[in-house]
């Protein structure tokens, strides 16, 4: 009795977690699947039907009378209405009002006496007893069952035509220096705050904790003015990569110092004291002992900063231009949302390219990310 109650509870736990996991992964899965679908299919059916055959209505115009050939005393125009080899015709017609009046293999008699036959594989023949005239070909309406088709075409298109490829490089250009440069600056400051006694240390730590939550919005306008001023003074453009690298460094420093200080303060005091007894200076201790020992904390911060700079939209919109060699992925994606709002094949493929690098970083370095989160938040509580 108790055992059955417990096992039903365990089952309930399994099922609820499964439900939550599905809820949380379905949005991303939908994006990924859609980005790989044929764009005509993507536009007319939901991604959850991606594996089933979809029905499409096509309108094809047969070649004009100049293509007719004489065969057994009759005049024939032939061709294929389908360009997709796996597709099958399920019905056809020649009038807008009745686009699916005939089954494949049947022969429809057109208004001028010509006879139209469309086979299941899409092959059609228009047969006439007299030479056909006129300038335009006959319109044929086809209802076709098209098997699901997966392709990298969407990716090929966005990487080249939509400028996602260029933006990918731009995002890397922003993120790499913005991630690496602050680390050393922050590490020295964190060491001073953790292990060097000096008046005002407590106040400085409090300032860093306070700066952790200062909204970026406060900095935007003053810095924009400052950048414009400096740019005008030096005769340089105000929006440059150097400007955004420095901005990312400035905004990332409080978290970097906070994380690293917490970590360094937890290192055993004995190591440093014995080194000091041996005559090592603070500089030596930092470079030879603290820095190597702090690697996990440095890695945590680097991952945070990389994700943050790669995913950032606001700072890039304010401090970086919108030219083809400056627009970052997030900015490009926002532009595409405006200009290509209905073209889901472009949006889904572009979005997936923008999130693939963070996802790789996330899955390969998750351990450090979790450690950093814990160090950054739980300590405050």
């Amino acid at each position, binding site marked *: 009795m108790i055992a059955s109650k417990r096992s039903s509870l365990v089952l309930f736990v399994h099922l609820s977690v499964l439900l939550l996991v599905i809820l949380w992964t379905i949005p991303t899965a939908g994006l990924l699947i859609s980005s790989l679908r044929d764009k005509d299919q993507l536009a007319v059916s939901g991604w959850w039907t991606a594996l089933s055959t979809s029905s499409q209505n096509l309108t094809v115009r047969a070649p004009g009378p100049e293509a007719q050939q004489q065969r057994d005393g009759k005049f024939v125009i032939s061709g294929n209405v389908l360009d997709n080899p796996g597709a099958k015709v399920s019905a056809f017609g020649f009038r807008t009002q009745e686009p699916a009046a005939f089954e494949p293999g049947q022969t429809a008699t057109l208004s001028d006496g010509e006879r139209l036959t469309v086979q299941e594989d899409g092959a059609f023949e228009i047969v006439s007893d007299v030479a056909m005239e006129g300038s335009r070909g006959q319109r044929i309406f086809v209802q076709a069952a098209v098997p699901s088709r997966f392709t990298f075409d969407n990716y090929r298109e966005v990487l080249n035509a939509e400028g996602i490829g260029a933006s990918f490089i731009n995002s890397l250009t922003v993120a790499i220096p913005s991630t690496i440069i602050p680390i050393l600056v922050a590490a020295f400051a964190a060491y001073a705050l953790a292990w060097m006694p000096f008046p005002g240390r407590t106040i400085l730590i409090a300032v860093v904790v306070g700066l952790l939550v200062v909204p970026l919005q406060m900095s935007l*306008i003053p810095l924009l003015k400052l950048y414009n001023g400096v740019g005008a003074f030096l005769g340089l453009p105000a929006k440059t990569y150097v400007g955004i690298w420095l901005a990312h460094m400035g905004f990332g420093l409080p978290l970097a110092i906070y994380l690293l200080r917490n970590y360094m303060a937890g290192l055993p005091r004995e190591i440093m004291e014995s080194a000091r007894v041996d005559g090592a200076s603070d500089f030596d201790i930092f470079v030879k002992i603290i820095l190597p020992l702090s690697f996990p904390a440095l890695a945590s911060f680097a991952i945070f900063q990389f994700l943050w700079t790669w*995913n950032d939209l606001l700072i890039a919109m304010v401090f970086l231009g919108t030219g083809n060699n400056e627009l970052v992925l997030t900015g490009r994606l926002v532009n595409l949302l405006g200009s290509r709002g209905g073209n889901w094949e472009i949006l889904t493929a572009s979005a997936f390219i923008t999130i693939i690098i963070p996802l790789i970083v996330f899955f390969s370095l998750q351990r450090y990310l979790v450690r950093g989160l814990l160090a950054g938040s739980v300590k405050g509580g």
Partner: protein
Amino acid sequence: MQQLLMAVITMVAGVLACAAYFYGTNLILDLIFPSKGRSGAKASRNLRISNAIRPWLFLFPALFAMTIYLIYPVFESVWLSFHDRTGQTFVGGANYVWMFNDGEFRQSIFNNFLWLLVVPALATFFGLIIAALTDRIWWGNIAKTLIFMPMAISFVGASVIWKFIYDYRAAGTEQIGLLNAVVTAFGFEPQAWMTIPLWNNFFLMAILVWIQTGFAMVILSAALRGIPEETVEAAVIDGANGFQIFFKIMIPQIWGTIAVVWTTITILVLKVFDIVLAMTNGQWQTQVLANLMFDWMFRGGGDFGRGAAIAVVIMLLVVPIMVWNIRNAAKEMKGH
């Protein structure tokens, strides 16, 4: 490619410059105040002086950058908020008076409070539930990784993902948006979700909850594991059931962590910008403060006075949490 090379070169140059600065200033300090090879009083005096200066050499680059990028702008923004659009003429409280009479601003404040009420609560709630449930099953870590994953996705990327889910096609045609497909499968009319006032705010909030639940889950999961087992065992012996153990034994012991998670998400919510910009750009009554501020920063050539005034409001909303954080950190340091 060429620019990527430039980025890598800059990175190396930047790191080398930092290293050169730290190494060089230390060397100079040791040359000016040598303590090795000097006798008695002179050596200890030099050592004292150099020990007093050295921390500031270590701190200087970080303090300098933080001052320029974070501290100075706070004062400058406050100053600008009392000036006109160009920042030249003093206008007193005119920007603030305009703000509180502006319908769009009041809409933003209202929406921001909605966000503040809903997002931290839901993200913390789901995070706590998932943390508690996944601790009991063998594939818990896989489940956690998958729920944590949206954390790595940018707000803009997440917006595209969810815009696809909310996609709307006219009734009668096949829906390719998941939400409308579900709704029509149950026999209801499809809706253009983004354009329904008030409710559309909640559809936007769902995106941030989706992203932030993983964060709450990771932190709370660690906190749950940190609970001393004796307390749970004692409760089991006393005959408490699962729910009682969870709500009466475990939750009270992790209140501090729940508060930290809650406030961290609250601060994020106050700054929410990308999602609104990408999804609606404030149309259909979904405007929020951060997007409004960005809008005024460039609207009509840029109104720095009004933009700064809105930024100051965001800052004021953050201040209580900032004070609370600083007090906690101070308490923590005394404990060390």
